[in-house]
């Protein structure tokens, strides 16, 4: 260290210009970080889609694309609907209270849908975004419990969901499958992504 006394005014200016430089550096980083957010084009791709369910038979599933995600439309059988209330004790969140915004008000019922038989849900596991597989057949089978009543099974981490997309206890997925906003345009036409008359 030199013996020259500290020039306080010079030091103040060095600190001030250092701070100004840091602010400039951070400001310069903003455009670069922002450029990594979804582009206007990606944001615009979120329009609602129509689906025709007239040909969908009981026990069948139809997949449509909405915002790049698979949306499933399942016409449930009376047996599948009858099994739902019995499962409540085995479910992690039977009433969908954990993420209330992912179940619209009109789907806040025992079967999580507008019409009991027509179930609309985003086919993306709430754990890490895999698309679960259909396991509609009841009964014992590999990777599933012996008292299986039919539902969905995520191949990635083994989460299981019932026929209303509700997650079973002690599975990695924290919440039930998301029910997207949707409405019936007619008995056979569904609009996915919107639930109010424009």
């Amino acid at each position, binding site marked *: 260290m030199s013996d020259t006394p500290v020039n306080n005014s010079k030091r103040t200016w060095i600190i001030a210009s250092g701070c100004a430089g840091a602010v400039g550096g951070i400001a310069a980083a903003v455009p670069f*970080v922002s450029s*990594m*957010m*979804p*582009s206007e084009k*990606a944001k615009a791709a*979120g329009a609602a889609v129509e689906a025709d369910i007239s040909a969908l038979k009981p026990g069948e599933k139809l*997949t449509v*694309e909405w*915002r*790049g*995600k*698979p949306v499933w439309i399942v016409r449930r059988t009376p047996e599948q609907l009858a099994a739902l209330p019995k499962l409540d004790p085995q479910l*992690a969140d039977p009433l969908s209270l954990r993420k209330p915004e992912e179940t619209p008000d009109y789907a806040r019922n025992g079967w999580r849908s507008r019409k009991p038989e027509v179930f609309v849900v985003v*086919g993306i596991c709430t*754990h*890490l*975004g*895999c*698309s*679960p*597989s259909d396991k509609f057949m009841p009964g014992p089978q590999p*990777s599933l419990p012996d008292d299986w009543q039919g539902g969905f099974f*995520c*191949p*990635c*981490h*083994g989460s299981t969901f019932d026929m209303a997309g509700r997650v079973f*206890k*002690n*599975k*990695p*997925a*924290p919440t039930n499958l998301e029910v997207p906003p949707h409405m019936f345009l007619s008995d056979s036409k569904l609009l996915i992504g919107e639930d109010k008359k424009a």
Partner: protein
Amino acid sequence: MADFKEISPNASAGEKLTNWFENRFPTAFYEYKKHMSEYYAPKNFNFWYVFGALAMLVLVIQIVTGIFLVMHYKPDAGLAFASVEYIMRDVPWGWLIRYMHSTGASAFFLVVYLHMFRGLMYGSYRKPRELVWLFGCAIFLVLMAEAFMGYLLPWGQMSFWGAQVIVNLFSAIPFIGPDLALLIRGDFVVGDATLNRFFAFHVIAVPLVLLGLVVAHLLALHDVGSNNPDGIEIKANKGPDGVPVDGIPFHPYYTVHDIFMVSVFLMVFSAIVFFAPEMGGYFLEYNNFIPADPFQTPAHIAPVWYFTPFYSMLRAVTDEMMYVLIACVVLGAAMAVVKGKSSVLLKGVILVGAAALVAMMLSIDAKFWGVVAMGGGVVILFFLPWLDKSPVKSIRYRPNWHKAMLAIFVVNFLVLGYLGILPPSNIGGRVAQLGTLFYFGFFLLMPWWSTIGEPKRVPDRVTFTAH
């Protein structure tokens, strides 16, 4: 600056040329001596000491093959898969370059895991080599990012769903998570934007960081000097010329040694490239020969083998496991307060910290803690130099049961890796949970267990028989 050196006019042409360069670029000569001809490495290196050099070789293979792949690859969600198939079928020798790159990725991890195990065995992370170890751990972490982003580029089913799962890991972070995942993907799902940016990171950003870290790793190593299988500081015993008596110049002694092992390595590497480039689905997964389909997750997805131990830890953290982990935190805090020798203030801090941690563990999803376990499994390696309290460095002079401990650690790591490849199952899940507890217990309890037992006497000179 070195003085200008005149040379006798009678010197040979070669000497004159050398002198010409030495006067104009003395750094090259100085650095050559410092890192090669006058870098004294312990003379008792064994087989385990080749993996650093092999890792450098694989890095070069990856960079060279990568440059040639970029000449033909198209980072576009609509074209990527077909461009990889084009490289495989239509580009002259493209299949060889691509298989060298894909096999190189697995070889890189194999070599790096063996290199890290060497450090673990002989205490190469201990004082004064903490920074060498930290740079090395950073290299491992960056290498994982590099491999992960590279795996998206072929745009097959495993590429797509693997990226989908890993990027969604970030969305488990409370508050900032969802926006962070959006920032990484650049879209609401993995798509073209994601592919483009992963390409940019994979071919330029991450390799630059990797190279910088490799340089730091080597410079720090050459400053403190290499450890050896006996864990003895050779610099403590120098001859009259200032050279460690147990040291030999890196060049030519170890360069020759390494070149021999390089040829052995290349034989194995070529055998895989030519005869088993997919390695039964472990190096190139079968599902990745199907183009990415955002609506159909393959029936079984698993990461490539080198990520599976950490992937097992991710899967092991379920709601039930959280209660076990909370019990561990409570037990650990209780032990620290009752048995610990710290001050009352510190004990109070431990109690408050543990209470806060338990509160967080109860309020945040198990999914987030799974991510913490996965990341923590890598991050905990950084702390190793300060967790090991054993009076001796090398496993050779540690109590015998430390060897058993290390052996169980290795077997446990392999079992976790194996379970990570398998589809989820009840029994496998339980074993993975036990394995995860052991993995973290091995490190977190190390300050305690590494001091137990009577170490053997460490000799003054390295163990070496001339051959």
